[in-house]
């Protein structure tokens, strides 16, 4: 059963992650939270997919083949239409340095693996709502 977000619309999430298990997990928890999810497994596909059909929130892994998370983020922020797209970065690299770089590139949330499922869901939903308000 899909729950609606605060403003009533269903949140559409794009997951960019190359580990199949993690994709499965994220899909599971987000859909249980009432979102609709799609997944891509490399950076190039991510950029293309966003251009084609922008989601409400992008859930972005750092270590992606073809273009890594930073490159995707930069591209999104530089794009004309989707500069304001809320991005949640997920990564196993959790050092301060990485967080700072990501923030300087304009990421909205930065989550390190392993993560708490609830935490991911909350952040995504919050950004989705805020994003909707901001758009």
């Amino acid at each position, binding site marked *: 059963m899909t729950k609606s977000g605060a403003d009533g619309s269903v949140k559409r999430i794009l997951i960019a992650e190359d580990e199949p298990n993690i994709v499965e*997990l994220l899909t599971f928890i987000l859909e249980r939270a009432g979102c609709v999810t799609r997944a891509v497994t490399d950076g190039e596909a991510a950029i293309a997919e966003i251009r084609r059909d922008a989601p409400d929130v992008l859930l972005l892994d750092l270590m992606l083949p073809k273009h890594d998370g930073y490159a995707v983020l930069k591209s999104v922020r530089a794009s004309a239409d989707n500069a304001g797209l809320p991005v949640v970065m997920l990564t196993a690299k959790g050092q301060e340095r990485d967080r700072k770089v990501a923030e300087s590139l304009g990421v909205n949330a930065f989550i390190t693996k392993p993560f708490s*499922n*609830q935490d991911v869901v909350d952040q995504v939903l919050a950004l989705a709502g805020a994003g909707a308000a901001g758009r």
Partner: protein
Amino acid sequence: MLTADVVVAIALGYVGLLFLLAFLSDRWSRKGSRWISNSPVIYTLSISVYCTSWTFYGAVGSAARNGLEFITIYLGPTLVFLGWWYLLRKLVRIGQVNRISSIADLISSRYGKSNTLAVMVTLMAVIGTTPYIALQLKAVTTSFEVVSGGSGDLLGNRSGDSGGSDPALWVAVGMALFTILFGTRNLDANEQHPGVVAAIAFEALVKLLALLMVGLFVVFSFGGLENLFPEEMSRRLLERENVFGGRWAVLTFLSATAIICLPREFQVTVVENARESHLRTAGWLFPAYLLLICLFILPIAAAGLTRLPAGANPDMFVLTVPMAANQEMLALFAFIGGFSSATSMVIVACIALSIMISNHIVMPVVLRLRWLRLYDSADLKTLVLFSRRFSILLILFLGLLYYRLSAQTEALASMGLIAFAGVAQFLPSLLGGLYWRQATARGAKLGLMGGVVLWVYTLLLPSLAEDGTMFGEIVSNGLFGWEMLRPQALFGMTGFDPLVHAIVWSLTANTALLIAGSLFSEQAPLERLQSALFVDVFRNTPGDESRALVRSAAIDDLRLLSRRILGADAADRQFRDFALRQGRDDGVPVADTAFITHLERQIGGNVGAASARVMISEVVSGETISLDEIIRMVDETQQVIEYSQALEANSRTLEQTAAQLRQANQRLMRLDTEKDDFLSQVSHELRTPMTSIRSFAEALLKADEMPPDQAHRFMRIIHDESLRLTSLLDDILDLSHLESGEVRWQVEHLDPETAAVNAIAACEGLAAETGVRVEHVPADTPAAIRGNRDRLSQILINLISNAIKYNDSAEPWVRVECRVEAGRWRVDVRDNGPGAGDVAPDQLFSKFARGWRQIAKGRSGTGLGLAISAEIARRHGGDLSLTESSDHGSCFTLTLPIAQ
């Protein structure tokens, strides 16, 4: 008004004044008043004995005839004195340390106290000085006649036979008497004559003053400088062809040489020097004196050329210009100035030469003639004084002779230059002796001889030659009629100024012979010692010599000798002082080397180093020159040089070591960074399975209702990831052990074929699961390798399982080919999978290589497999590499060395 008698009277009066001054100064000095020897100004003024009547009269003459050329005579000494720190200071220091009494003494002493050299130098000095003295005689005579309005007229020319006595003779006699009275009244151990020095200094002031006054008069009487040098006059005076050419340079060089090599200059600069620090003043004050002397030369010349009739003798302008303006007093004063300059030269030159003659010619002869039986000091002293007085007479006689023989029309300046060129022959031996340790006596003798011969032939001879005489013949046609041997155009060097020509030939030959002679001869031990003492005079401590010489003597013999030479009182005083210094209270010193050396120096002050050495050696027994000591002394300098070189080398190696340390540090830092990277990579790799485990577990816990197969699936994932995690940890540990080399393997002889078969069997399950066909192609020849069984299997299993796992083609196969090739056992694991893509080969074998992830079928590797395999292969002495990679498949190759 000025008659001959008046002039003579005034001249004699002046001489009397000088004598009084000298007498008083001597008296004061003996009483202990040191104001003369302490005054650097008096020292400097005494050096200006360089400016003789050549300067006083001849400079103006030269200016009028040849323009600016005269200045070179004063620029040379200026340069030498400006550089006093290096050359003059060394000369003075050597002179003091070795108690040098003359330039002959210096040269002979340096080259092993060689008496031959001393004699050569003395003779050359006498010959070289003769023209100079002649020139003074000529100047005095001529100037006397001019100023007394005698047989000369305003033209200043001597009119042939003056009928009656030749003034020159009287002048010569007068100067001889004067010098004898002045310079040979007593013997000083240091050969210093403070009275003479004081008188000379006074004369220096007189002549400067006289010249300046005439100069000022000229400027005022013309109403300013502009009127002196109208365009036409200055062009006439100054514009010459090639003013600053070869002759300019040669003359500057000659005058620079002369200021050191002229016997009289050596005497006042080195021998009479009481304090080295006086050089500091002389270094700038003497050039200043020269500058002042030169200041009005050209104005006076210009005045003479303007005011006096053509044909007037320019040498006498200093007198004739005032006289033409009826300034008789001024002319008289100028005459006194000129007279002053001439007499000072003669006095000092004769003193210097007489010292040389008596020390180096007379004394050695006398000592050899034992039958003369000179027993006490009075006898010896008398002999020395007598020989000196005789020398003075002889020198003046020679001067007079030269004056008579020389061409009467010769300018003063050219006679002086001949003398300069003569004493310049000392320069190579002198400089060589001071700065080149290898210069030997033989070289010096050869050089001196060669130079002198050429000087006589190219310069002296032509000056005495007159057309028609034998000499004249030689000059025009060459020796024996050989044109190549013409004195003024040797070997075809025509068209050169005779002076330049002579200098070039004589000095070149001199230097060349010195160098060649030194290179081809050995130094006697004493020579070596002396050369070290001289060249390194600034580095040695006093007493170095006595360390090198070991001597002993009977104290009584020494006392006898000393009393003979120094006089009873002086000798006894020396003995007492030395006894005190040695700490003996009976007043009798021990005749050790130091004392003997000291005595030798004292005696040498009286009779010259060469003679002193002879005398001492008669008394001394068992003299050994410690060659080792000499060598040590000479080597010390060498050692110092080597030491500092070693220090330099050391600091260079230190630098290298520091560089190496820096490199090692950088390597360590890199390794550290690598380790950090590895650790962060590892933690990153570990987090991925951890994420799955945690999150799926969380999901399972949170889910209220979950379909059982989904829950089962999740649990399975958790399980698999845990396994993955575990194997990852195992691999990391494994790799770490491998890299650190801690683990010792069981190494045995293996059949690699069997290992391959076993590995394939181990992967059977995986192959069946994924539907991949595995083939095995064994090697033709059997082989054995040495290695660890399990590890080898590990590699093969890793390769084969990789090939299976990452193969996503429609009909996947893996082929394991083995063969023996070039002494190695080789196995190729081929597959028809997608290839490595664009991952670089070396990246592939590094830890956690990417590139294979995305195509892993269900189970991704730890990422360390290849890295571990590569390391194992390396440890076995083998190699693991990717040999083929394309879209159609890849091939991994393992090679291992065959065991013998």
